[in-house]
């Protein structure tokens, strides 16, 4: 099952190779060395790096405040830190442009994508902080280390891995994003790929650009795995967790966090609400409810199937440390930064070659979701699964349980929260997905995202806004659940604190 899942996610890559080398190798080399390509690499990487750095800074800071400080309202700020995940980047961009008509360029793209992807870092770091026992920190301070020294030498090494993997998700998201960068007119690879289809109808050019983008992705992955280095092994569940007194910093920090929330949530939501009120009289409720149903149906089944396959891969990778496992785990990342349109077209091509009967059915749509979002699920599952110590397996074996029973009764319960997080994360992402859904859906099926696309295509923003608002509210549910799952991890600790 794990192998099959990994193979699915490699389809786009194989497709790109076929397209590019079908057109001849010289063309590829020529284009790869063109100045324009170089410019795109620089502009894409510049955006990806600066966004992921600022997202790591903001997300880690928010997580630390929510989990480890005594700031008043930290729970609220925690929810506010996760909620921007519910806003698709194209919706955020539209709503900003509706407020500030000239909103464009590098700064605009950086701002939108930073607040849009910081929640990925926030979630991953919060989970790590919640699992990390603060005893070593206390030992360090009792030995005379200052607060910053403790942060730097004890806390940071323990959350570094989580910060970096959140940053990686952020960087890869930036590389594959089309909505935000096209609306604020910042040139990246993905935008050039879409333009290759839209303007010159040139599939080979688009494929060549996409293949170069895959190469850039590999580069990012290599750099990331190098910089991770050896990470200290965290404890399974924290026993103690002290909160740091922020004293006079409370007020400025509340102001800062409120500022971040205004940029990431208040502006888009206010803009959407305003336009929704304008557009409400013309709203077709039957259309909305049908779209709502399809969105829920597709995202829930997509989330569950993807999470199931991610568990399979994670088990192979983490529990049975084989070479095959490593290759599988890395290979699913290969196409993660590939734009949705390329993934969708590769599946159009493959299904028509191999299994025409699944083309334009929900099966193919779900396959696309697996190919696109397996890495998201995998990143949420791997860490909790690796934290269930293998010694427990041995104990359970010594008590006469079979491997399958051990898996069911020992490993999966420990990894339960991770699986839950993975499922909700994919549900959330599928809800927002547009290009693959648009191209692969069965004829006549409309989701909130495709309706939103249709409406913005013809009429004023006001007709589209109710769909956008509903989509954001709906996606808010898994975003909120995701945040609550992290808080649940904290509950036993908070209980201890009171004792």
């Amino acid at each position, binding site marked *: 099952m794990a192998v099959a899942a990994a193979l699915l996610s490699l389809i786009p890559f194989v497709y790109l190779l076929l397209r590019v080398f079908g057109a001849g190798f010289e063309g590829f080399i020529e284009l790869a060395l063109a100045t324009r390509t170089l410019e795109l690499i620089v502009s894409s990487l510049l955006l990806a790096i600066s966004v992921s750095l600022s997202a790591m800074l903001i997300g880690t800071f928010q997580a630390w405040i929510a989990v480890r400080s005594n700031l008043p309202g930290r729970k609220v700020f925690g929810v506010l830190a996760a909620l921007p995940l519910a806003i698709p980047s194209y919706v955020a961009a539209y709503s900003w442009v509706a407020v500030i008509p000239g909103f464009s360029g590098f700064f605009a793209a950086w701002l939108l994508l930073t607040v849009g992807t910081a929640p990925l870092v926030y979630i991953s770091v919060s989970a790590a902080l919640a699992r990390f026992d603060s005893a070593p920190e206390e030992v360090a301070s009792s030995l005379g280390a200052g607060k910053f020294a403790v942060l730097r030498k004890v806390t940071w090494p323990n959350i570094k891995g989580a910060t970096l993997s959140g940053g990686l998700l952020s960087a890869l998201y930036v590389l594959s994003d089309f909505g935000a960068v096209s609306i604020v007119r910042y040139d990246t690879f993905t935008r050039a790929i879409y333009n290759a289809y*839209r303007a010159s109808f040139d599939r080979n050019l688009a494929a060549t650009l996409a293949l170069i983008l895959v190469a850039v992705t590999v580069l990012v992955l290599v750099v990331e795995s190098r910089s991770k280095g050896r990470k200290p092994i965290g404890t399974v569940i924290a026993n103690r967790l002290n909160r740091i007194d922020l004293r006079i910093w409370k007020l400025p920090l509340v102001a800062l966090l409120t500022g971040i929330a205004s940029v990431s949530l208040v502006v888009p939501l206010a803009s959407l609400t305003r336009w929704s009120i304008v557009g409400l009289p013309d709203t077709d409720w039957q259309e909305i409810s049908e779209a709502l149903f399809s969105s829920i149906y597709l995202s829930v089944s997509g989330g569950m199937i993807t999470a199931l396959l991610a568990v399979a891969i994670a088990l192979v990778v983490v529990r049975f440390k084989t070479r095959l496992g490593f290759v599988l785990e890395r290979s699913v990342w290969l196409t993660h930064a590939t734009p949705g349109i390329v993934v969708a077209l590769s599946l159009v091509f493959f299904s028509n070659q191999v299994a025409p009967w699944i083309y334009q059915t*929900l099966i193919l749509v779900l396959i696309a979701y697996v190919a696109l979002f397996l890495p998201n699920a995998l990143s949420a599952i791997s860490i909790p699964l690796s934290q269930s110590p293998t010694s427990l397996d041995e104990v359970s074996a010594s008590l006469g349980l079979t491997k399958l029973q051990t898996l069911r009764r020992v490993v999966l319960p420990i990894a339960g929260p991770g699986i839950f997080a993975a499922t909700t994360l994919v549900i959330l992402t599928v809800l927002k997905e547009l290009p693959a859904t648009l191209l692969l859906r069965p004829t006549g099926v409309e989701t909130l995202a495709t309706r939103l696309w249709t409406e913005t295509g013809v009429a004023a923003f006001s007709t589209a806004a109710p769909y956008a608002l509903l989509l954001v509210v709906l996606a808010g549910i898994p975003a909120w659940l995701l945040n609550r799952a992290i808080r649940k991890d904290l509950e036993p600790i908070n209980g201890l604190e009171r004792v």
Partner: protein
Amino acid sequence: MNKKNSWLAPLSLALAGTLTLGACASPAPTDSTESITIYSGRSEELISDLLTTFTEETGIEVEVRYGDSAELAAQILEEGKNIRADVYFGQDAGALGALAKEGVTKTLPPDITDLVATEYKSMNGQWVGVSGRGRVFVYDPAKVSRLPTSYKDLMDPSWKGRIGIAPTNASFQAFTTAIRVLEGEQAAIDFLNAMRENGVLFEKNSIIMQAVQDGVVYAGLVNHYYWWELAAEIGEENMKPEIAWFKDGDTGNLINVAGVAVLSDNPSANVFAKWLLGDTAQKYFVERTREYSLTGIPEVAGLKPLKDIKAPAIDLSNLDSLAETLELIRKAGLL
């Protein structure tokens, strides 16, 4: 206690449900002559009523996939030997030309192509335009006293910050391609550089209209029907912008078309193509979408008749090479 089963049950249910639904939704290729599948780059809002009328009049059922013109064209090409669409209904001549170039279109019989003048169809009968859209100059008469006679007049520094354009929009790009093809690359570069200085950039034509109405800019370059779109929203009597054309033969007067190509041997596909050029459909384009009829149905009141417009002489099939144009637009810093 049994934590696992709590999420396993809904999962298996979802899986089973998916497979069943998936099987039901499996598209039957339209082998029946009484039904056709259309891939439409034109939006549902604008043409779904038209398609309903088609079914009522001919008894031919229609299944439609709506999408972006160019992405649907790419999808058709990736379908390879299993093309599901009988008809492709595209927003502009460029996408139709691209499909014809790849050899997936069927030659239309002369009883269809003869209905339309030479400049609005493919040279060798691979696609045919069904409705026309004019490139126009919209302006606020309270602010613009002397009308430009050519799009080139807008390059004058006096227009700085006053003219609205939408460079990411296909209609602006087709217009720039026309300049490139008819007047040479340098003319296009000069125009774009001047627009970088003078132009105010918008995402879409409809937003330019609103900006002229609100006094944000003095004037804009848009397709003609956007005037009526705004008028429908706020009432014709409240419209500040007016429409003007440039001098005869000016490239600024480009007429582009939306059109169809037939992709299968299903005879109903040709019936549909021909029906689109019949009176019912042509009247619909004139009255509902405010486009130009290509078969001589009179224009909506207040719109300059198609026969009086001296458009630039360009083969619309040449609009399929937008790549060079995009490169120029990007170099000028407008994309």
